[in-house]
């Protein structure tokens, strides 16, 4: 992180309010560093986990939403598990990713949210994830057409991939969930 000064005036109160409603108490951090030292992906992060928590406590939403770290986080929950103050750090990462997507901020790791989009698209269509369809959709969206070709083929030959999708009966309920049920009260 650079040495830029952060003024209390830059604090995004709305963001801090959102963390509060989700019981993510970033103010409880006393910077012990257990989160950063246990993070399995930490070496690939631009902001380390403790910096993410600290910037969140300062209300620095914009800086966080432009980081690589929020996308590279694998949601393994090691940080939240080991935090002596039980800060829901993995939950904080969830909030940051969702805000970045809702605000249309270009993700610094574009392929990762594209994967999530393809995954959720499959659930929206069928109620369950249909792996071949989901992977194909991701390949087209990301342009990564050749990556893992051999692996995919081997999985296919082993009969590990279900060939045809089957929609669940409650498709209408799934559609309702994806239509934003409950979100009218959210930001």
């Amino acid at each position, binding site marked *: 992180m650079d040495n830029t000064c952060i003024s209390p005036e830059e604090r995004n109160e709305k963001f801090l309010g959102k963390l509060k409603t989700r019981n993510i108490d970033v103010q409880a951090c006393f910077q012990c560093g257990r989160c950063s030292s246990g993070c399995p992906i930490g070496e690939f992060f631009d902001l380390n986990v403790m910096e993410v928590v600290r910037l969140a406590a300062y209300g620095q939403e914009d800086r966080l939403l432009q980081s690589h770290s929020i996308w590279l986080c694998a949601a393994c*929950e090691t940080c939240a598990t080991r935090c002596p103050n039980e800060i829901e750090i993995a939950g904080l990462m969830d909030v940051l990713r969702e805000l970045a997507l809702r605000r249309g901020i270009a993700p610094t790791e574009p392929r990762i949210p594209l994967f999530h989009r393809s995954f959720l698209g499959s659930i929206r269509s069928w109620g369950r994830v249909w792996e071949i369809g989901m992977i194909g959709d991701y390949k087209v969206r990301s342009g990564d057409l050749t990556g893992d070709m051999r692996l995919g083929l081997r999985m296919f030959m082993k009969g590990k991939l*279900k060939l045809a999708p089957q929609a669940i009966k409650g498709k209408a309920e799934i559609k309702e969930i994806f239509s934003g049920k409950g979100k009218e009260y959210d930001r």
Partner: protein
Amino acid sequence: MKLSYYPGCSLEGTARDYDQSVRAVCTKLDIELVEIADWNCCGASSAHMTDHETGMRLPIRNLLLAAKAGHDLLVPCAACFQRLKAADKALRADSRFWDIESYTPKFTILHVSSFLARPEMLAAIAAKVMKKLGGLPIACYYGCLSLRNPRITDARNWERPETLEGIISAVGAKPVAWSHRTECCSGSLTMARPDIAEKLVGDIVRAAARAGAQAMVTDCPMCQANVESRQATGDGAQEMPVFFATELIEAAMKGTYPVKQQKLHLVSSPVLTELFRDRTMTKEDSA
């Protein structure tokens, strides 16, 4: 005993043999599994990582179906288990926030290995073993989501779990002491950042080999697929097959491990087929 059963999407695809072995083991143990009718995807990591509402409402639909059935709910997939637990906690804390008048079901959500590692289940498994696994050194690999975080999963020993060790000991294998039992394999990133997955899986597999393991065992379908598919091959790298815990139990109980089953693995180590070869051959000859 009767349990509700939530297989989850992986167990219809890449981990369909996990589903088959869970069912086979339960049948042998006189446990009737009643699949939740018309279950939907739990949303997995992708939903809760990018869309909180959807990430909660998808598992909530399953919980309401399970609550109607009433039995305890058996879940083989670590990701499904964690998502169902998270939704269950949120509903019990404040169901009306999620537009549900009241939610007080009595069922428990069980991840398959903590269920099978109960003392009475271990005794039942050991009693039905036809062929022990001959002290095969195995690294028990838990990964993340059946354990973390414990405020969601209610796991008791999240840094030093023992359920898989108990299970493989009951079937006569030897758990090795090693370092990476609960390290993340980055399954949720494996498609978009295979480079990261290869690094993490490489570390995990090397640690298992260093401890003298000839195979790994897990209870997570994402870990199984990711660790088998992202380990380096060639150049003297030791190949490490990853078995499902129930796959080993089924083999020990039936006394055979079919070649057909081994071929479903991406890592073609014959360690288990060799162990069972004599028996398998005599069985096939007499059939």
